[in-house]
């Protein structure tokens, strides 16, 4: 469950950007579309609690995220939000499995090795559990990024241009996988993209201009 109303964000020394309202009910997913420079990533970061809005409201699973600051916001973000970035980045000094365990521990959830293993298996990268992330292929890294976004059973999964580096086949697989796991976890999936290949796969669309 996610609703926003009259969100604005102001970069220092610039006039505030106004964002259209986003509303997703249970099992509802959305695409955020728009040309470059219209603030797609900014909206995503607002939804993810990475930055706080100048005005307006964000409610995720009953929590007023716009009111949270500092430590409370960090904790909320760690527990309730899963984010998949354009390029998969991980902690280089850790293995795939350790990256997941760290994600649990940062959110204050007790590290559960069994759950992490199961998740890696489910995303077909179980055999890479003890590999360093930079030794994995791009496709495997994308799957690990999904695993990391999912490990804490978040309320919403945010994906920033997840398919931009992928070919058609991988792109389709990636989005299908995302939709599948989001449905299984009863999370809202919100994807920022300008990738026309995805448009047909998710019904709800928010246009930025």
């Amino acid at each position, binding site marked *: 469950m996610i609703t926003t109303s009259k969100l604005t964000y102001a970069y220092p020394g610039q006039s505030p950007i106004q964002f259209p309202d986003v509303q997703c009910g249970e099992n509802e997913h959305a695409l955020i579309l728009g040309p470059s420079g219209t603030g797609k*990533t*900014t909206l995503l*970061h607002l939804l*993810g609690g*990475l*930055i706080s809005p100048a005005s307006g409201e964000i409610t995720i699973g009953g929590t007023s995220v716009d009111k949270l600051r*500092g*430590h409370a916001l*960090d*904790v909320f*973000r*760690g*527990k309730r*939000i899963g*984010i998949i*970035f*354009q*390029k998969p*980045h*991980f*902690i*280089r*000094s*850790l293995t795939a499995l*350790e990256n997941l*365990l*760290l*994600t*649990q*521990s*940062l*959110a*204050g959830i007790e*590290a559960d090795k069994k759950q992490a293993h199961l998740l890696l298996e489910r995303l077909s990268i179980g055999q890479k559990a003890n590999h360093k992330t930079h030794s994995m292929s791009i496709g495997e890294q994308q799957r690990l990024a999904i695993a990391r976004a999912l490990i804490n059973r978040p309320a919403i999964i945010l994906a920033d241009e997840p398919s931009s580096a992928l070919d058609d086949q991988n792109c389709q697989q990636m989005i299908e996988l995302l939709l599948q796991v989001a449905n299984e976890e009863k999370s809202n999936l919100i994807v920022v993209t300008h990738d026309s290949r995805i448009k047909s796969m998710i019904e709800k669309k928010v246009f930025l201009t």
Partner: protein
Amino acid sequence: MNIFKLSWKNILAKPLNSIMSVLLFALSIGLITFLTLFNHQFKKGLENNLAGIDLVIGAKGSPLQLILNSMYHIDAPTGNIAIGEAAPFLNPKHPLLSGSIPLSLGDSYGAFRIVGTTPSIFKFYGATQVEGDIYKNDFDVVTGSDVAHKLHLHIGNEFYSTHGLEDNPDLAHDHGHPFVVKGILQPTGTVLDQLILTTPQTVWKVHEHDSTATDQEGSGHEGHHHDDAEHNHTSMPIIVIDSTEAQVLTDSIIAALRAQPDKEITSVLVKFKTRTNIQSLNLLRNINANTGLMAASPAMEINRLYSMMGSGTEALQYIAILIAIVAAISIFISLYTSLKERRYEMALLRVGGAGPGKLFQMIIAEGLWISILGLIIGLLAGHLGMELAGSILEEGYKYRFTGLLWIPQEWWIIGGALFVGLLAAVLPAIQGSRTDLHRTLAEG
């Protein structure tokens, strides 16, 4: 997988950078530890051997040399003095003195000095227990515990002395009267452990080969049993030195010495009855001004020695501190550059729920891991180095240096090292904790 484990993994992920910083740190800590251990034991060695001695009286020359020679047994004598001249200070009834010990030096065995003196030296240095017995006749010897241990001497063993302090077979007096080990002192922690003690008369007799034939009568030494004793090294019971008996022997030796005023000894160790007595304080000046003898105060000379040695170890300490600064800069640079490479990782940690404080802790922990590793290696190396150098130093300083001790100053080394590690990590940690989430992630 918490933030501290992560900081450890981060250190392991960059082994070459980390090893460089750790080694620099260890080098500095090792050097400082070694110097601290050395200084501590050097001072302790000097102080243990003060033994309450207030003056050393000997031939004119360098007062420091006289002290080093007569109290620490690490330098050549300044010369000899006639007993006649020194007689007042050997007088047991001297109004200012509570005790005095004549020393006759000149020979050695296996690089350990043979000292002709009175049995009162045991009490002077706090030696109370001996295996076997104290020496009673000429050519009887009591060895220090280190001497017996190093030279594998046992009660009843015989040996010939060597002229001078070097272990040189060409200088051996191998056709005179042999020395017989009568007793082995229990360890005292003083220079006695490194000495072979006998009567003053023995030292003269070694150098009077002609008279050795007659010595044997008077010495009371029964030369027939030593073979047995050499073959089965049965240890003798350890007895408490009988101070009355030692005093009687001392008195008779002193009386014999004073009866031969033309003979020479090397020096006299003197204790005052009261140190604050004006006459006592003037004694040193009076001897130096009005007699052919020289008096030297151990306390004064040792202070002079400290200040001379001090500047040397101080210079080394500065070098060690310089290395510590370089090590700190190396930690700083390695954290700072890795921070630039890990900007995105910092942002990921923030996304995952870590607050700025957690990032700060993580980078501080990385600095501390390096300093802790350097500290452990450095402390081990410093102690090991001191233990290995101990035997070399022992020969020169006549004091047993060891690396197997822990002294309170080392807590300061630990505290200092952790502080330096912390200091080197603070700036990178502040920088890292300020990672701008949104900008870093938006830039990819």
